[in-house]
């Protein structure tokens, strides 16, 4: 019998967090800033897109005290991210790194496992 542990695969990790894939549920787990949240496929990529759209240069150059905080309420999640500039950079690295690893996984599947024999 498979345990829950075997379904969870680490996709990408940094010092600040990690992204896991749950093979059973087909969703992703984001471990960041001490909390873990589950995201369905479209919601995970919507969050990544939202984070990538943040204009970091504008945030940094704006002297307003409120400008260095971004509040993000991702779809399909109860979690609210309140991120400062550094955390946005860290989360951006984590999500984009995970995306690259997912693409690599797709390439491996295409080249190694789905090749007709």
């Amino acid at each position, binding site marked *: 019998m498979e345990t829950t542990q075997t379904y969870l695969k680490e996709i990408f990790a940094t010092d600040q967090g990690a992204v896991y*894939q749950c*093979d059973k549920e087909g969703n*992703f787990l984001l471990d960041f800033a001490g909390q873990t949240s589950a995201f369905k496929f479209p919601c995970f990529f919507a969050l990544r897109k939202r984070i990538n759209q943040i204009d970091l240069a504008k945030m940094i150059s704006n002297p307003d005290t409120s400008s260095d905080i971004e509040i993000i309420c991702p779809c399909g999640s109860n979690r609210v991210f309140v991120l400062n500039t550094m955390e946005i950079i860290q989360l951006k690295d984590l999500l984009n790194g995970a*995306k690259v690893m*997912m*693409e690599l996984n*797709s390439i491996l599947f295409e080249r190694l496992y789905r090749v007709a024999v």
Partner: protein
Amino acid sequence: MRDIVRQKTSLTEEIEIILNEQIKLEAKASALYLAMASWCDQHGFLYSSEFFYKQSGEEREHMLKIFKYVNDVGGKAFSPEVAGIPQDFDSLKSVFVGGLEQEIANTQALNRVVDLCYKVKDYTTAHFMQWFLKEQIEEEFIFRRALELFEVIGEEGVGTYMIDKKIPDIKYTHE
């Protein structure tokens, strides 16, 4: 590890982005033709007005065709924001010149989509886009023929009246 990404969608991110840009372009064309229909209606060019109402509807259908395709293959289609549509035009001729320019821009944009499809080896989307490329032959043809009427008939006297009357007769029959 399961290949969840491929199981959920066959679109790469770059193809999804360029298809959403194309959705926006088709929506913009639909809105532009609606503005042209309104201008023609106001200025008494009723046949041209009808022509542009029809063109506007067709562009919206094109937009929906791509929109549904993106969602069908697991991507996310974005409902486009359209702004900056010109509402006034100098003359009936300038309306058709604007229409032809729009169609040329659309053909070039579609070519870029197909070009990218081949670059990333997305032959499914490349095949899907063939219908649009074929459609562009007709679209450009109709606007070119319309502009030729301005040269053949001339705009003096009852010229624009005659041109307007001839617009519905333009048909592409070389499919």
